[in-house]
């Protein structure tokens, strides 16, 4: 059988490519400076104000009988030993009490003021970039044409079929690879329409000045401390998306995917016409 022919198709428009990489850069700095800011008070609450005795999530450190510092993480009523990662970790040569470890924060040591400078600078880059992306996606039809699932894609049988195919690492080929499959569409739409905007809005809700200007934001999230929790949860979901995204990029062809997001060209395999049957049939 002759090998399937490869065709380069135009997959990503210039605006998608530019905003994608701007997003990567700003989310990188936002995450690491955000963890620095989290470390200033590594506890999360729901509601308008902090209920100091009862955070739903917190990290901390205690001195054990062995004289060493142990890190603990509390989620609800569950307490976990997370020494070395959360609560207590290495800073230089010493183990110190800190929320997230030095290699995950900007700067590496405790410096809230500088973490805020990095965070608010890239918050503007991120917000303007997302606005540009969403405005162009609405106007040029990208959202409707490429991301909105079609009626047939949404049929339960089709969705289950796609999940089963993904679990077996079988990805669409040929004509089907020209468009996103329903799981891709769901993931991308969820990120660009729900998670990323929620990140910006919950971040704005933590600003006392913006709360005075947009009081409905505080109601939307159920209070400033709820907004801080939702900011953290949403960031975690974006990290989860990133990890799955990386795995899928590698499994479905690293080079082809990276090229498509840099040059816009994506190779798909087109099945050749079926070869004539050989003469050994009965």
């Amino acid at each position, binding site marked *: 059988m002759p090998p399937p022919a490869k065709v380069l198709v135009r997959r990503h428009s210039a605006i998608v490519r530019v905003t994608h990489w701007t997003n990567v850069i700003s989310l990188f700095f936002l995450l690491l400076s955000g963890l620095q800011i989290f470390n*200033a008070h590594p506890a999360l609450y729901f509601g308008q104000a902090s209920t100091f005795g009862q955070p739903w999530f917190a990290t901390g450190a205690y001195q054990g009988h062995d004289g060493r510092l142990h890190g603990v993480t509390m989620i609800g009523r569950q307490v976990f030993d997370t020494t070395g990662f959360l609560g207590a970790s290495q800073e230089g040569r010493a183990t110190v009490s800190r929320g997230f470890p030095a*290699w995950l924060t900007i700067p590496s040591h405790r410096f809230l003021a500088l973490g805020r*400078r990095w965070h608010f600078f890239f918050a503007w880059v991120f917000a303007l970039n997302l606005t540009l992306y969403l405005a162009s996606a609405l106007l040029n039809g990208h959202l409707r044409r490429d991301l909105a699932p079609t009626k047939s894609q949404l049929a339960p049988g089709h969705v289950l079929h796609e999940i089963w195919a993904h679990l077996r690492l079988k990805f669409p080929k040929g004509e089907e690879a020209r468009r996103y499959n329903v799981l891709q569409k769901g993931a991308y739409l969820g990120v660009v329409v729900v998670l990323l905007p929620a990140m910006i809005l919950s971040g704005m809700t933590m600003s*006392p000045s913006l*709360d005075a200007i947009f009081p409905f934001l505080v109601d939307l999230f159920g209070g400033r401390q709820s907004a801080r929790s939702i900011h953290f949860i949403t960031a975690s979901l974006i990290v989860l998306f990133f990890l799955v995204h990386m795995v899928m990029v590698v499994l479905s062809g690293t080079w082809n995917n990276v090229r498509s997001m840099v040059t816009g060209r994506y190779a798909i395999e087109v099945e050749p016409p079926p070869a004539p049957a050989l003469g050994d049939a009965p």
Partner: protein
Amino acid sequence: MTLPRRAWLKAAGASLAAAFLSGCDQITENPGVVKALSSAEVLNRRVQRLLGRSALAREFTRADITPNFKANGSTDPPDADYQALVAENFASWRLVVDGLVERPLSLSLDQIRALPARTQITRHDCVEGWSCIGEWTGARLGPLIDMAGLKPEAKHIVLHCADTLGDAKYYETLDVFDVHHPQTILAYAMNGAPLTVPHGAPLRLRAERYLGYKQAKYLMRLEAVAAFDHIGGGKGGYWEDQGYDRYGGI
């Protein structure tokens, strides 16, 4: 054989990681980089003041008050002058209002209590991330400053405080922009009782649209100025001198 090698690998890995992190920090803390990043502070201040000149911070009910409002920063100033004032229950304490004003003032606590007052139950947001709700009663700053009469060249009010934190006196700066905001008050009472020492007795600022570090405690003197680069570290506040943004609205 394996153990020393493993230990060596671990040590090499750790020193590589440390070198990497200090390399990163050289970039993230580079003064030129920090200066460029700080342009976002100007943007935040300009946009937020454009959108909401006189927007009011949300006010809550007594039921929302946080039972144990956290006191942060100085909670018992070590300064001898201040301790002497505490000992005599602030009888000889005076608030000085001077600088670029037509009529400098020196006001006792009773005189301040007689000024137009406001009570507000608001959310206090610490830059660290936590929030507490409390009720504040105090003299509105606008009428008080009008008594002194600001000179046209005055741009900021420097709030000089009694407490030494670390090795510097605490101070803050408030823009003239915020002086007449209805929720900008000099509070002498919290949750219906006279202000306690941990919360800034006898008088503290409440400017509700800003973070906790702007709410200067232990007030001694309000100085109207055109510029603040000659005061403290020159950045417009105790925490500002340590690298925090002076705007403090986000």
